[in-house]
């Protein structure tokens, strides 16, 4: 018998439309909602620049609706809860985003996101839309071993790709250059997540999996997919000491490297806990001779009310640092 959680929604079948209506009403200066349920920039980018599109399941807010805006993405096609949108809707998003210089469809690697993006690209070919490409992004080291990186899942660390790719596509680079930049950030990014609790499906209210109170799971995916396994819950310091070394070894991040750090809140972890965790991250990185360029702590890609976090590192050079510092104006990602 699994526990039920009461969520403040209206009818379960209206979760997506109610959420998008509320979001776009609140941030009407940044985004607008089309009749087809696409979230676009309120003011489109100038013609002649590569446009960025992402389709993804909902339930991970502020990802990705919060990332539509200047210096970020052009269009988000939000699917149902934890369900990638179908190819027709992705095609609509591609058409809505196109500014005459090509469209890059970004895929956070999960089966549904990938398959529907592939189908959408086939529809583009059938309609003669030729300047459209896709890039598959992944960062979670727990989902496939080193050497099989393309099998890995996309998780919170794609944060770095979204920001820097968004900045890149405000410039003059073409579609191929945009894809190459996305791959460069991806290939310098590694993440590992952990969770102390499950979350409930907003549709059914049922808890998605059972998690004993005194245990934690390392390597949890964005939908509560299993990771490396369960173990006794540890303190903050011990948890970081367990999670950071495999991240560092995987790239590997080495002494002298400069990195961006993200501590992403999966849902109901407190900022207090995240700051305590970050203290240990900073200590261990300093010990390893790795310089932190900038850090971000907060809920950027969530899994409902799951209590957990993801630790993500991205190695940066001068090009990436400049893109990181470029202005961005999304509802939930601002950089001045």
């Amino acid at each position, binding site marked *: 018998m699994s526990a039920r959680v009461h969520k403040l929604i209206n009818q379960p079948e209206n979760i997506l439309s109610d959420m998008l209506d509320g979001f776009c009403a609140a941030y009407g200066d940044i985004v607008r909602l089309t009749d087809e349920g696409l979230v676009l920039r309120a003011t489109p980018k100038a013609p002649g620049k590569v446009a960025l599109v992402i389709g993804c399941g909902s339930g991970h807010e502020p990802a990705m609706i919060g990332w539509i805006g200047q210096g970020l993405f052009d269009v988000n096609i939000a699917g149902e809860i934890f*369900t990638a*949108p*179908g190819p027709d*809707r992705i095609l609509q998003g591609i058409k809505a985003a196109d500014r005459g210089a090509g469209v890059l469809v970004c895929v956070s690697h999960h*089966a549904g996101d990938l398959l*529907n993006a592939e189908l959408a690209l086939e529809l583009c070919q059938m309609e003669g839309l030729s300047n459209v490409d896709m890039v598959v992004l992944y960062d979670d080291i727990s989902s496939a071993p080193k050497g099989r990186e393309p099998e890995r899942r996309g998780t919170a660390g794609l944060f770095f790709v979204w920001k820097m790719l968004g900045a890149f596509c405000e410039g003059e680079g073409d579609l191929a250059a945009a894809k190459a930049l996305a791959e460069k950030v991806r290939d310098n990014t590694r993440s590992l997540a952990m969770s102390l609790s499950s979350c409930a499906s907003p549709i059914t209210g*049922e808890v998605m999996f059972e998690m004993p109170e005194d245990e934690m799971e390392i390597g949890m995916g964005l939908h509560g997919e299993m990771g490396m396994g369960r173990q006794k819950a540890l303190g903050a310091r011990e948890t970081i000491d367990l999670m950071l070394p495999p991240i560092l070894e995987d790239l590997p991040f080495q002494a002298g490297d400069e990195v961006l750090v993200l501590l992403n809140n999966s849902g109901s972890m407190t900022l207090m806990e995240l700051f305590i965790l970050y203290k240990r991250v900073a200590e261990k990185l300093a010990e390893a001779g790795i310089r932190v360029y900038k850090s971000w702590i907060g809920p950027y890609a969530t899994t409902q009310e799951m209590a957990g976090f993801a630790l993500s590192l991205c190695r940066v050079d001068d090009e990436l640092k400049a893109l990181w510092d470029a202005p961005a104006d999304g509802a939930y990602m601002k950089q001045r």
Partner: protein
Amino acid sequence: MSEIGSDNLKAMVLAIAGRIADSREQLNRLDAALGDGDHGASISAAFEKAVAEVAGLPDPKPSEIWLTTAQSLMNGMGGASGALFGTLFLKGVAAIHGKERLGKADLNKLWAASLAGVKARGKAEIGDKTMVDALEPAVLAFAAYDNIADAWAAAAEAASNGAESTRELIARQGRAKYLGERGIGHQDPGATTIALMFEALDNYWREMTNGKT
């Protein structure tokens, strides 16, 4: 009866939709163990949409019925399931394009194209704990009989056995892959849906022909 037309195909989509709607909760439960627990709800809603869309087609050819079903599943469901079940119907469209009536050989081609399409799209083979574990044996069994009634019966049985075989497998594709050995003991919801589809088609054929072949 050795050939089928558009009225039969419409009724087949309706039969599948009905069988899946009846199994909505069972499919949700299977998916809760391996995925996020919504497979029954989403696929029954998508087939309901397919039935409505197909009913609205004026005088459709067989391929148009299959194309409309494919689009309803892909766009009504989304996710990996939408793409894969959509592909199942979509890839059959070219195999029957232009035909008014379908004989046994056409149906063989239809299912062979569907199977090849699903395997290519999902990069899955037999033994990966996916819908292919039910679909491939069903398609092979269907092709092995010249008589349509015998073929449906054999396909339904093969799909059911295939779906049951997924219980002991470790998933190598999709979200369940990350469960590893922890997925053993749970039957794959996609394979189960395929078994329900072929069961519905077999039942439809027997009722329609009243046991005659």
